[in-house]
């Protein structure tokens, strides 16, 4: 079948949180834009099968937990009854509302949306395998590659089996397995474990490294690990899955690790959360001079331009951190550069949030990173046991700490663990971007009683005085 041919000024390949904001901004800046994605609307993994549905389910998990917690306060709800169909319907509704909204916005901006999978044919053409059937050849003047990433697969597992899940399968919410093994204690594994534990699964998480969420500082991870040990059936670090055999009564799994009494286990489902791979293969990069590095990330400059000066790349496909908000920022840079503005990718920090219970968030450098890179630093930390608002929530399992340059007291990093840490971290990002010192944070009045006071009080701790907390003299 012959492909129909069209031309466009800017083609954006991939409609995720990098691609759609880039397309929208470029259109607002006066460019003629075509956006190609296989989903029915812009949104990508983030909205369809990532951030948004997982946070919807985590909210439900939080409700279930808080209802149980209320018993201690004299309010008893009784055990929850979960209607999985209704929950799925609600989750899909959230996704539909947001992606449908993006569909309207894209039309209002006159962004030409082509539904299908695009493969780069030459430095100036993309062929789209249309969802509706047939092919469309699009000739572009400029291209932004925003093809994102996919879950990493394990070579010894049969990923076609209905019993082996990745995060996409887990978010489909088809069933609540009785015994669920999660391979990988990173943020996705911990978040999905929290959801399924709340829904009633017996969750086991195994992590090959010595700690879950290894990118964060150990003192911030500790409350998350403590709570996980409480709500999960089992949480094992330094442990690997070495063999999986499917039998009639379930998946027989052999674990390898220190001090495992019974390495042979049986589970109903295995959820693999061992990271994500950039989608740089099978998109036709070989038909261009675009370079990829050893891990498959597209190499770009500070304007997100590839080795082909008219081709840009943004988001997960360009490198770590593989986070939606990083992709969005990059998309903005690429669109502005294309509109002739002297834009550049230069954020001082990118916040990271793990939506476990309690939440864990950090921005700027971590204490571990400062140690490894030999950066001089001082730590000021404020435990939530001394925070009034945390006590009123019966959630003293939190810590706010800052990593400070001792020479000029500039904030280098902030880490927070505790309920709502994901919202609180925004102040840290702003503080770092604006070049705040400890004194700036200390002298900014924070409303009482709020959890945000812990930021102000940790700044006070730095100078040795906090009304509610007297750190031991070091």
């Amino acid at each position: 079948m012959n492909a129909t041919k069209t031309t466009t000024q800017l083609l954006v390949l991939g409609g995720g949180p990098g691609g759609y904001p880039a397309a929208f901004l470029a259109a607002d800046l006066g460019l003629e834009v075509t956006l190609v994605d296989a989903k029915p609307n812009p949104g990508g993994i983030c909205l369809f099968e990532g951030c948004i549905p997982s946070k919807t389910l985590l909210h439900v998990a939080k409700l279930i937990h808080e209802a149980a917690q209320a018993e201690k306060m004299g309010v008893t709800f009784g055990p929850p009854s979960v209607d999985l169909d209704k929950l799925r319907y609600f989750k899909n509704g959230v996704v539909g509302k947001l992606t449908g909204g993006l569909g309207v916005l894209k039309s209002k901006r006159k962004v030409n949306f082509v539904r299908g999978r695009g493969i780069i044919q030459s430095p100036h053409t993309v062929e789209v395998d249309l969802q509706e059937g047939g092919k469309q050849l699009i000739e572009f003047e400029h291209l932004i590659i925003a093809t994102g990433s996919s879950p990493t697969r394990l070579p010894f597992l049969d990923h076609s089996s209905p019993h082996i899940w990745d995060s996409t399968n887990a978010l489909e919410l088809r069933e609540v397995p009785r015994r669920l093994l999660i391979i990988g204690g990173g943020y996705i594994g911990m978040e999905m474990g929290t959801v399924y534990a709340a829904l009633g699964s017996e969750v086991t998480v195994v992590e090959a490294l010595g700690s879950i969420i290894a990118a964060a500082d150990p003192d911030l991870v500790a409350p998350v690990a403590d709570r996980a040990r409480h709500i999960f059936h089992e949480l094992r670090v330094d442990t690997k899955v070495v063999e999986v055999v499917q039998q009639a009564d379930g998946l027989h799994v052999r674990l390898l690790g220190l001090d495992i009494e019974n390495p042979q286990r049986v589970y109903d489902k295995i959820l693999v959360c061992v990271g994500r791979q950039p989608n740089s293969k099978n998109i036709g990069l070989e038909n261009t001079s675009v370079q990829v590095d050893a891990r498959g990330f597209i190499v770009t400059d500070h304007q997100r331009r590839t080795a082909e000066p008219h081709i840009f790349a943004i988001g997960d496909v360009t490198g770590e951190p593989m986070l939606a908000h990083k992709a969005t920022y990059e998309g903005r840079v690429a669109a502005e550069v294309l509109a002739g503005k002297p834009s550049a990718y230069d954020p001082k920090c990118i916040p990271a949030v793990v939506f476990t219970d309690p939440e864990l968030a950090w921005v700027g450098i971590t204490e571990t990173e400062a140690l490894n890179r030999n950066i001089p630093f001082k730590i000021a930390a404020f435990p939530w046991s001394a925070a009034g608002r945390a006590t009123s929530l019966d959630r003293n399992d939190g810590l706010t700490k800052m990593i400070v340059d001792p020479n000029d007291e500039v904030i280098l990093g902030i880490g927070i663990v505790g309920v709502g840490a994901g919202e609180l971290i925004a102040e840290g990002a702003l503080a770092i971007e604006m070049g705040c010192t400890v004194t700036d944070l200390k002298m900014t009045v924070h409303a009482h009683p709020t959890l945000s006071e812990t930021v102000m009080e940790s700044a006070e701790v730095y100078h040795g005085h906090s009304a509610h907390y007297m750190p031991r003299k070091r």
Partner: protein
Amino acid sequence: MAVVFKLPDLGENIESAEVVNVLVAVGDVIQAEQTIIEVETDKAVTDVPAPIGGKVLELAVAVGDQVAAGQIIATIEDVSAGSTAAGAPSPESAAADRGSTTSSASARAASAADASPADAPPSAPATRGGKISLPEQAAVVTSASDRPVQAAPSVRKFAREIGVDIAAVAGSGPAGRVSIDDVKAHARRTPSGGGRAAPRKALPDFQKWGEIERRSMSNVRKKTALQMESGWQAPHVTLHDKADVTALEQFRQQFKATVEKAGGKLTITAMLLKIVSVALRKFPELNCSIDVSQHEIIYKRYVNVGVAADTDRGLVVPVVLNSDKKTVTELSVELTELATRARQGKLSLEEMTGGTFTITNLGGIGIGHFTPIINDPEVAILGVGRSNYEPVYVDGGFQPRLMMPLSLSFDHRIVDGAGGARFLRWIVEGIQQPLLLAMEG
């Protein structure tokens, strides 16, 4: 990973040097800081050390070659950096390199190599066509120091937009925080940073000598001030001459009714606009711009002449696009219309940009010769004075001839005195011998 090693900057005002000795051969394994070549400038013989150790894959120069700063000298296989995929040296190692060097030449070599890792994307300009015109990558200044610069995002953006390396700006705020004012002050001190060269002298207290009044400048005034200041950076030469416009004035009287019917006013300026436009086509060096940072001249294959207009709001310069392709009648109509709208303050920004040359006429106020200032980024401007009848010695006797003073200012960086003189003479001849336009234009 192969690293392309380019000749570092050899010092102020030294653009090229002669290779007098090549000390390594292809295939040699060399150490960092080992001298690869010796070059002779008009000042001295200098060693050029390798920025990194490794195997020499390719030598691009030979004894006797003239080499310029930035020219590729050799390609070196960096064996030590094989494990890093990105290729660019990490900030720490780059800093260490610089710290360990002993001579300033080698420090420059190290920084030159930092700036051009072999696998960095090329800075080729974007494809032509469409609305998208990408700036050169090198044009965007970003900083690559270890700790992020102590400046807010808005300040970093501002610095990028005016071409200032934010890392080089001394911050005046707490903990060295850089403000927008710091960036502005830095730009003013650094001529290459896009700012002005001289810091402003403090003004005296004028009230000591009597009553004063301070008024803020109008927008047009502010714009004109900035525009004149940037134009003034060009080294000006002004040539004065006179053209005999007796015949041209007779022609004007003869045809002004016809042009009026077409909706325009036939003026000497309109006719001069035609002559100058044709002259610009013939003398492209007067129809160009200079790119100092790139050492390039930008020739424009179009002629858009601006005509300065004095209005109640101040000086404005509407531009007549493709003025060389329009007839005198068309130019008269367009000028009349532009002048009317200029007086009404209804010109759009678009109508005042894109000029390649400017004509300014003070004749109406009675001035003879004057020295106009170039309308940056153009390279020349023609001043027109008041025409007067003068006795001209023709064929053994004096005759009353109508003479028009002309003053041409041009940028001596691009146009030499002789070139400017030929251009002005061509215009004078064009005025006196209108057929010249038909013959040469």
